[in-house]
């Protein structure tokens, strides 16, 4: 039994980035996945009536990005000074914008909206990120070494939301190269091979 427990639905969704950060760090964690019924039973006891929730050695943290940022900080993946912290947060926020844009139209069953997100919003967003990656030397997004910014972009490119990742990365070769290298980290490779397959 680990003293780190991440609770969410049986999905990648808003918890997968935390799972990837935990996997990379090599820290053992309990990957708790609740059915709808199980969630319903505990919902009112949760700080914001939502998941994901992180129980970290007895401390409870909510809000998916705060969970991820905390786990990244605990694993030395938030940059080496305040400026790098902010640069990483910036990338994460930019990716969150893209994901939220998609999630909005996806759950509204807005087919035109989904098409627009995939054909216009995602490529435009990736173009911005490619430019920034290039300006930082092309190897990593922040401080020329791995941070959670790289893992966030990787997770977005690899999984997307609702199993709908960006269509292709031909126009974003540095991002493609980065993601290829992230996938090769032994712990990431292992997690991707072993994690449950979900439809979201």
């Amino acid at each position, binding site marked *: 039994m680990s003293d780190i427990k991440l609770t969410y639905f049986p999905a990648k969704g808003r918890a997968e980035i935390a799972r990837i950060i935990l996997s*990379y*760090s*090599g820290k053992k964690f309990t990957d708790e996945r609740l059915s709808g019924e199980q969630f319903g039973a505990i919902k009112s006891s949760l700080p914001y009536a939502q998941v994901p929730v992180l129980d970290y050695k007895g401390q409870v943290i909510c809000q998916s990005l705060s969970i991820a940022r905390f786990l990244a900080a605990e*694993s*030395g*993946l938030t940059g*080496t*000074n305040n*400026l*790098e912290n902010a640069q990483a947060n910036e990338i994460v926020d930019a990716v969150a914008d893209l994901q939220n844009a998609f999630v909005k139209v996806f759950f509204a069953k807005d087919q035109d909206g989904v098409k627009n997100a995939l054909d216009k919003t995602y490529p435009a967003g990736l173009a911005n990120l490619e430019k920034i990656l*290039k*300006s*930082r*030397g*092309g*190897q990593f997004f922040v*401080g*020329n*070494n*791995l941070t959670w910014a790289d893992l966030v972009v990787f997770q977005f490119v690899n999984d997307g939301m609702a199993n709908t990742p960006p269509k292709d990365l031909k126009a974003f070769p*540095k991002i493609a*190269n980065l993601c290829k*290298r992230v996938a*090769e*980290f*032994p*712990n990431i490779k292992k997690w991707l091979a072993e994690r449950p397959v979900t439809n979201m």
Partner: protein
Amino acid sequence: MPVTITQTIHLPTAQKHPRKTPLATIKLKYFNIRARAEPARLLLACAGVEYQDVRVEQPWLSLDNEQYWEALRTSLPYGQLPILYWDGEEIAQSLAVARFLAKQFGLAGRDTLEEAQVDEIVYAIEDAVNARIDVLHETDEKRRKTMEDKFITKTVPTLFLQLEQRLVLRGGQFFVGNNLSWADIQAFFFCSELDNQAMLDNQAMLDKATHLADLVRRVGKIPNIQKWVQSRPE
């Protein structure tokens, strides 16, 4: 003219250094070989900074070269190369040069403990590097053969297994702090030099050190390192 000056590979755009002078003038001077300057060159490549890669033709190749070198060495603090000039400040001793660069580029560990962990790996590898150089410099043919055999059958395999154990102890992905550091680059340097010299069946030995082999492969795929290895002088 014995001195070759190479205006270095301008690897993908200037790296911003939050701590130090972003546009330091950097000059590295060594012979036109890899050997004791290559760790510094790899670090500079990884960081993507512009520098002058000054190469003095090997004194052992011609009398002209030797005379040039003998004159040059009188001006060097220890009569040796490599030497680094960083904004005009002179730093000698190959490991001091590399450590300084690693620190400048955030690759020397993030606290005192990590710095020591990096140094430990570097010194362990340096023992083998020095053993290799001793083999090269041995003039007695019989003794040389003995030393070479020892290097191939004992020194290197032992080091590989020791490094593998250290790496696994740290989580198996990187030697220090679960992120890239000079320690990983030094391991890449050592392993790729063995490959280059085709002196050993490197792969057979690395087969036992699976995490080390994977690390070396991954470091080699870092864009600037890959680019430098492909484009550096022979």
